[in-house]
C-alpha cells in the first residue's frame, strides 16, 4: 500500500499553494516580466487580429504560421547563419508570399462565408502541421539567443533579447498602423472593410486589397514565429501552445481596433503575472480568462472599439 508520508502529501497538494511572500522588488519584477510577456502576446496575435478585423476571417492556420516562422528562423539563422535581422525580414517576406499563395488559391473563394473559411483554414492548419512533421522530422530544434546579456535596473532584471522582442513587437505594431492609416493601400483596406461594394465601385480592386491584407497578417505571424523561436525549441507542435492565448487576446481586444489588442495583451499578461504571484498560475490563467469573458459581456464589441467614424 501507499507510503504514509506520500499519501499525506498527496492530500496536501490539493490545497494548492504557489503563493510566496510578496515584496516591492518582486512586484516590480513581475510587472516588468508581465510587460515582456504582453509584448510577446501582442506580437503573436497581431496577424490574427488583422485578418479577423479587416477581413472577418477566423484564421485557424494562424498558430501553424507561427510554427512555420519558427522553422524559418531555425533554418535561416541557425543553419545558414544569416544575420538575425535579415532572418526576421526574410521570415516576413516568405510568410507574406505564402499567405498570398493561400489567399489566391483558397481563401479568396470563401469571403463572407465564415463556416467555409473556418473549414479551409482548419484544413490548411492540419496540412501545415503534418508537412512540418514529415519534412522537418521529429526532434527538438534549438535556436540560440541572438543576444544573451541580462540587464539589471535596480532590483529588476531584464533579458536583452526580451527587450529586442518588445522592440520587434512595437515595430510590427507601428509599421502596421502606419501601413493601415498613412498609406494609400491602408486607406483601401479600411474602405474595403467599411463597405466592400462601394469600394469596388470606386474602381479599387478589392481582391488585391484582400490579398495584401491576408498576406500581411500571415507575414506578421511568420515574423512573430521567427522572433519567438529562441524562447523555446522549434518543433512541429509549437503552434498548439499559442492557440488559446492568441484567440483569447483577440476576443478581449475586439477585432476592430489594434489599440484594443495592445491593451488586452497587457491586461491579460500583467494580471496573470500578478495573480500567479499570489496563487498558482493555472488558477491565474483561468480567473483571467473568465474575467475577460465578463468584461466582454459588458462591452460586447471588445474593450476598445473606436468611438465614431473617422
Amino acid at each position, binding site marked *: 500500500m501507499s507510503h504514509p508520508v506520500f499519501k499525506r502529501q498527496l492530500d496536501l497538494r490539493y490545497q494548492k499553494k504557489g503563493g510566496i511572500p510578496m515584496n516591492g522588488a518582486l512586484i516590480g519584477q513581475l510587472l516588468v516580466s508581465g510587460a515582456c510577456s504582453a509584448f510577446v502576446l501582442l506580437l503573436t496575435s497581431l496577424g490574427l487580429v488583422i485578418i479577423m478585423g479587416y477581413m472577418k476571417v477566423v484564421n485557424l492556420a494562424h498558430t501553424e504560421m507561427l510554427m512555420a516562422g519558427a522553422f524559418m528562423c531555425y533554418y535561416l539563422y541557425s543553419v545558414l547563419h544569416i544575420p538575425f535581422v535579415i532572418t526576421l525580414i526574410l521570415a516576413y517576406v516568405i510568410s507574406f508570399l505564402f499567405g498570398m499563395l493561400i489567399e489566391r488559391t483558397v481563401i479568396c473563394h470563401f469571403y463572407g462565408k465564415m463556416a467555409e473559411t473556418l473549414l479551409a483554414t482548419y484544413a490548411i492548419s492540419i496540412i501545415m502541421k503534418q508537412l512540418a512533421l514529415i519534412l522537418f522530422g521529429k526532434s527538438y530544434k534549438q535556436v540560440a539567443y541572438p543576444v544573451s546579456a541580462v540587464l539589471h535596473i535596480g532590483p529588476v532584471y531584464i533579458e536583452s533579447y526580451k527587450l529586442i522582442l518588445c522592440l520587434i513587437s512595437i515595430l510590427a505594431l507601428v509599421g502596421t498602423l502606419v501601413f493601415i492609416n498613412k498609406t494609400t493601400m491602408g486607406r483601401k483596406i479600411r474602405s474595403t472593410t467599411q463597405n466592400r461594394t462601394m469600394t469596388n465601385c470606386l474602381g479599387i480592386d478589392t481582391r488585391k486589397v484582400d490579398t495584401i491584407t491576408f498576406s500581411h497578417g500571415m507575414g506578421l505571424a511568420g515574423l512573430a514565429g521567427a522572433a519567438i523561436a529562441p524562447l523555446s525549441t522549434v518543433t512541429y507542435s509549437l503552434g498548439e501552445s499559442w492557440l488559446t492565448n492568441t484567440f483569447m487576446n483577440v476576443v478581449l481586444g475586439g477585432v476592430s481596433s489594434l489599440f484594443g489588442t495592445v491593451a488586452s495583451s497587457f491586461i491579460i499578461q500583467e494580471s496573470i503575472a500578478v495573480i500567479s504571484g499570489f496563487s*498558482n498560475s*493555472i488558477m491565474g490563467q483561468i480567473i483571467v480568462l473568465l474575467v475577460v469573458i465578463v468584461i466582454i459581456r459588458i462591452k460586447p464589441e471588445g474593450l476598445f472599439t473606436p468611438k465614431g467614424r473617422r
Partner: protein
Amino acid sequence: MKKLTRMIAVLLTVTMMVLAFAGCAKKGGSSDSIKIGLVFSLTGGTAITEESMYNSAVLAIDEINAAGGINGKKIEYVVKDYATDPDTAVKVVKEMILQDKVAAIVGLYTSASRVAVEPILEEYEIPLVYPTFYEGEEPNDYVIYTGCVPNQQGDYFVPYLYENVSHNFYLLGTDTTYAQGINAQAEALIKELGGKVVGNELVSSDVTEFSDIIAKIKSTCGNDGCVIYANLNGDSGTAFYTQFAAAGLSDKYTIASFIMDESFSTALGSAAANTYASVNYFNSIDSEANKAYLSAYGAKFGEAKAAAVTAVGEATYDAVYLLSKSLEKCGNDITTANIMANFAGLSFDAPQGTITVDGDNNHIYCKARIGLVQADGTIKTVFESDDVIKPEPTK
C-alpha cells in the same frame, strides 16, 4: 431528377455497405509466426519522444527475428498511430486485438492513454508492455511496466541534490498527475531531510513563456543557491530551460528534472548544461550491451538519431526482449495467462544493466541513476545505485 436523387441515395448506401464489409476482412495470424502490436504516436504532440521508442521496438524485433525468432517462430508486428490521443489509443488497441488478433501489445507513452486502454486489456485479456517511466499506479493485471517508477528515481535524486547542490528546493511541474506525484514525493522527502521547499508551482502544458515564474524563482531563492525541481513536459520544458539560461540564472541555481533526457539535452545544447537528470538509463552508459544497442540503432536509423535515444527508447527495447523471453517460455501454449505468469522473475541483460520483472507488481527491478548534462548535450552518470531497486509503484 427523381432518378438522380434516388441514384445518389442508392450509391451512398452501397458505398457504406462496401465499407462495412471491408471492415469485416480478417487478417489473423499464421502458424509459423507470432503477431504483436506496436502502438506509438507517429503523429501528435509526443511523437518526438516516441520516435526512439518505436525505432527501438522495431530494432529489437528485427534482432530477435535475425537470431531465429521465438522457438523458431518469427515475430510479426502491426504498428498503429495513436496520435497522442487517448480515444484514438483505445480505438487502435481494440483494432489490434480484434482485427489483427495480436498476442500482446507493446507501446503507449502518455498516462492518459494507458489509463484509457486498461479496461480493454482487462476485457479481452491481452497483455500490454508499457515502456515508460511514470508516476506509479495500482498495478494492472494485464500490464507489464518496463519503465522505472518514482521510488527508483526520486528516493535517490532528492537526497543527492540535498547533499550535493542545495537544501532549498523550488518545485515546478506541468499540471499532470506525473508531475504532481513526483513533486509531492519530493516535498515529503525534503521535509524528512530537513530541507526547505521555497516554492511549489504547477503550470499548464501550453505555457511556453516563463518570465513571471523565473521572476518568482529569482525573488524567492535569493542568493543561497537553490534546486529548481522542474518536471515540465515537451515544449514547455525546453522553453523553461532556454529562458532560465537566458535570464542568466544557470550559475546561481541548478535545474533538476525527471523529464530531462537525451532528446532534450542534445537539442538544448548549452542551455541545459550542468542540470541534473534522473532515470534508470542514460545514453552514455559504458557497457557492452549498451554499445551494441546504440551501434545497431545507429546503423539502422542514423548516428544522429542514436545520440538522441532516451530511457523510454531503451525501455521499449527491453520491453520487446522481455516479451519475447516470456513468449519463448510459453512454448506452443501462447495464452495471456501464460505470458503474464512467465514474466514474473524474468531477467534481461539490458543496455542499462540487468533488469528483472518483479512478479508482485509487474514492474522491473532496476538501478537508479543520476546524470549531469554536459555542454555537448550528453548526459554523464554521476551517481548509480549499488544494486537494483525493488519497484514500489503504489508508494
